[in-house]
């Protein structure tokens, strides 16, 4: 936080020299924006409250999302360690946890209903608060304006609201952990009638109410953010930044935001109808129920309807989680392999393909819910098609590494780890997407292993790659590389040790969300394996504190960053080491080329930033580029 004075901008200098014939003139819109910012800076230093807390600067908001996301990740990880203790050592006493968990430990045992609350909150926190808000919130906010060449988001105010709605939603969710009946415990998918009836499980009382209220604020936050991201990408690109010159990160954030805008409202409607059923006696999801010695008057509703509504968000949601990671990984791989990303257009095409398909596959979560089997066939067909664009992405990443000149930065390691995990987790999707095989695999640990690898761990790896890679731009300092290496190898090995054996347990049919398997002969043969998984999970979780330490240490004491430490081509590295509000002190650089001119034949340097015109790179221009230069 010490290096706040902007350094002379090298790349901007290059551009000023060469761009004689086409001196970048700010458009009216950008010009106004620019003047406005200067005005702000000259006349009043902002109070710290407006600068760091209620800031409208996209970079500050990004850091707020990141640090809040880290808090949630630690909490989500802690919850998983608790239930792994139960699964690994079902017989041993957990009395020592009583000071933390109080009444939830009864006679040395974890309360089974609290176990379900742990599972539910772990899922909710990780999917929504960490991998949606923490990942996309951080990097969409941070990178969109910097990489498209904008002063800030289209609406700084809405952007600020987006964070504070998220914060409010988090407060509500967090407070639900401390109420007497416990937090929501119906699984993160909150299927009614379980989630609708407090008689069915105590967590469906106040805990569930808070869950729903929290989620409403969360959805508002997502929509405010998403509208902003889309608007910024469409309208505020700098001169020359056509859609076909956007870095893949921006394409990924852009499509992610569109998915969010189109799917979160459906979750909102599901939540709203559930609130009606819970509080106002309607019967959208309830019918023919006799519970706690009483026949309820609700008739005509359908629990399966809720599942349709939920998964209409829920499936795009997993792409909302993974696509930003894909974008960042593409960027990190190209930069550190010193090679252009292979098949740039195919990468965009596959992102678009995945986005479109993600809306028409939701019912593959519901093959055995009693849905019409014909629908099952249709959704199996659409689901398995997704393997094709996903495969294209993997092959393109591999081709990007091929004959590269790879620097193993911590970010690069996590990017390679991402590809590995995405392959491992993605392939089992071919089994689960097959309705016939899903009859056996549905809701077993095979599913748990699948999605933890393909969307959980992969997205986390994308997040880590992003943090290590853009940390210098965020804080003007470098994270410690060696700690980064240790963090990577520990996490990478840990993730595989946890989730590979989980497949075995799943193939044997062990159901998820089981507090204990001891009651069943069919599932009891994996006691040792569960212990092993628990140990690996807890070690891998503790390993994350290396990252937390590295992160906070480096903010204050890390090595000073240079302007473009990774020799990268994208626009964010043309800003000062720590960009102020408005990002570029002078004019916004114009863009002349695509973002992946690494190791271009004929060029002296192994990277040519996007803002260098072709007229300056006569020696390396391809024929059609030469035409543009002339």
């Amino acid at each position, binding site marked *: 936080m010490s290096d706040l004075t902007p350094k002379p901008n090298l790349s901007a200098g290059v551009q000023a020299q060469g761009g004689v014939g086409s001196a970048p003139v700010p458009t009216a819109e950008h010009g106004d924006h620019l003047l406005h910012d200067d005005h702000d800076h000259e006349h009043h230093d902002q109070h710290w409250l407006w600068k760091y807390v209620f800031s409208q600067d996209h970079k500050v908001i990004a850091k707020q999302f990141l640090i809040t996301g880290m808090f949630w990740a630690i909490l989500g990880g802690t919850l998983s360690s608790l239930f792994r203790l139960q699964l690994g050592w079902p017989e041993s006493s957990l009395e020592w946890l009583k000071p933390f968990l109080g009444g939830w430990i009864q006679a040395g045992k974890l309360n089974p209903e609290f176990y379900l609350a742990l599972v539910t909150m772990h899922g909710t926190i990780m999917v929504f608060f960490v991998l949606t808000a923490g990942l996309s919130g951080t990097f969409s906010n941070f990178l969109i304006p910097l990489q498209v060449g904008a002063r800030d988001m289209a609406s700084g105010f809405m952007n600020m609201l987006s964070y504070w709605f998220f914060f409010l939603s988090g407060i509500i969710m967090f407070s639900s952990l401390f109420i007497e009946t416990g937090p929501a415990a119906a699984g993160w998918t909150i299927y009614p009638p379980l989630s609708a009836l407090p008689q069915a499980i105590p967590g469906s009382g106040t805990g569930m109410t808070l869950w729903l209220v929290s989620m409403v604020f969360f959805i508002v936050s997502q929509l405010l953010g998403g509208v902003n991201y889309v608007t910024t990408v469409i309208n505020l690109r700098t001169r020359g930044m056509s859609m076909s010159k956007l870095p893949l990160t921006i394409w990924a954030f852009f499509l992610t935001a569109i998915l969010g805008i189109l799917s979160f409202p459906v979750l909102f409607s599901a939540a709203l109808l559930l609130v009606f059923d819970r509080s106002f006696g309607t019967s959208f999801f309830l019918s023919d129920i006799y519970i706690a010695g009483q026949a309820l008057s609700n008739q005509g509703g359908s629990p399966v309807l809720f599942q349709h509504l939920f998964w209409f968000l829920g499936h795009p949601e997993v792409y909302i989680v993974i696509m930003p990671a894909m974008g960042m990984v593409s960027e990190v791989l190209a930069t550190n392999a010193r090679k252009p990303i292979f098949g740039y257009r195919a990468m965009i095409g596959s992102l678009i393909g995945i986005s479109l398909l993600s809306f028409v596959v939701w019912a593959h979560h519901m093959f055995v819910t009693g849905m019409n089997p014909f629908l099952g066939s249709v959704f199996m067909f659409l689901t*398995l098609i997704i393997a094709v664009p996903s495969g294209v992405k993997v092959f393109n990443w591999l081709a990007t590494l091929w004959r590269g000149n790879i620097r193993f930065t911590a970010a690069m390691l996590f990017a390679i780890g991402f590809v590995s995990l995405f392959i491992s987790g993605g392939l089992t999707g071919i089994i689960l997407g097959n309705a016939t095989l899903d009859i056996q695999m549905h809701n077993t640990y095979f599913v748990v292993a699948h999605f933890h690898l393909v969307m959980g761990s992969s997205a986390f790896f994308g997040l880590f790659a992003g943090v290590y890679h853009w940390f210098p731009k965020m804080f003007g300092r470098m994270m410690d590389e060696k700690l980064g290496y240790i963090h990577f190898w520990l996490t990478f090995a840990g993730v595989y040790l946890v989730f590979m054996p989980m497949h075995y347990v799943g193939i044997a049919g062990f159901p998820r969300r089981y507090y204990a398997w001891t009651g069943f002969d069919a599932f009891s043969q994996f006691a040792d394996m569960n212990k092993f998984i628990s140990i690996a999970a807890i070690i891998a979780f503790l390993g994350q504190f290396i990252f937390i330490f590295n992160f906070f*240490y480096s903010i204050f004491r890390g090595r000073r960053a240079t302007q473009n430490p990774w020799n990268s081509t994208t626009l964010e590295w043309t800003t000062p080491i720590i960009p102020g509000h408005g990002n570029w002190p002078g004019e916004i650089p114009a863009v002349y080329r695509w973002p992946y001119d690494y190791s271009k034949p004929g060029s002296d340097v192994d990277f040519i930033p996007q803002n260098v015109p072709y007229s300056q790179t006569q020696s390396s221009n391809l024929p059609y580029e030469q035409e543009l230069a002339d």
Partner: protein
Amino acid sequence: MTVLTILLVLVLLLVVFGLLFRLQILTSIFSGTFTRDIGMSNSVNAVLMLVFLIGGGAWFAYSFVENFGKMNPPIASVHGHQMERMFWITMAVIGVAFAITQILLFVYAYKYQHKEGRRAYFFAHNNTIEVIWTIIPAIVMASLIFAGWKAWTRITGPAPKNSVVLEVMGKQFNWLVRYPGRDMKLGVVNYRMIDAVNEFGFDLSDKSALDDFTTNEIHVPKGVPVLIKIRSRDVLHAVYMPQFRVQMYAVPGMPTRFWFTPTTTTDEMRAKLGNPKFNYELACNQLCGGSHFAMKATIIVDEPDDYQNWYAAQQSFSQKNPDVLAAFKQKAKTMVAPVAAATDEKKAPVMPLAASN
């Protein structure tokens, strides 16, 4: 107090770690090794990539083989064998893709590590290659989809006419089972008639309900198609019978079904596995509350003759519970409208049944 102690220890550990780390950095600055040029660490990481591939691959192969016996639940249904074959064929296909891509990933990472003076190969795209690796997965997926679709249509198709029918009802936290009795017709049940005795909600004013009987265990005959009708009376449950490769949700308000043909009796399976205590199990596989993990039923597969004998020996619910039957008769006399109409009538009041209980 314990909380404080644990937190204090954690904080102290963190501080110690921080100091050690600082010390290490200061020494490396002092000794001049604190540079960030690409050097040793790059080749170490590259080698580790290779080590991870070989070590990880070996561990995975070993543990997979080691656990292979445990991870295959015995199969006891006709479609189960087909599913099993499809499962392992698909596993082989994805196994090949897994091996190729992972090996390429780590080998490339190792082989193309940074070397001073080398330049990466500028290779932005190649349409031929891209078309090839789009089409090949598409063909493979198409064949998997076709096989899956064929099997899915057969498995979820209508049950054969000669099927044995039974009904399973999920409730927190056990399974209720009923058979149609002599008339082979399941009688009307109505959730409004459920109480502590009439757990299934039999509407005994319906004649075909009179001979329905309930059991604790599920009995099915070997070699005959069995149609399980599935209900839930409170929250979602799922009928999951891993050895028969059967799974279907139990949805309140929406009866579901699944049919299968058992191939091995319980006794045969016990002999085959050398486990005299073996039983086929029915587990709940959709989160339904605190004791979800203990919601279990046992399935007995009998020889057809044994099944017939067992079936004939069962006493119907109405015979076992004359009180309930009497209450229904009483009501039929006092009420003008037929009771059965209440099944469809939304505004029908909750009927106080079997008040004596």
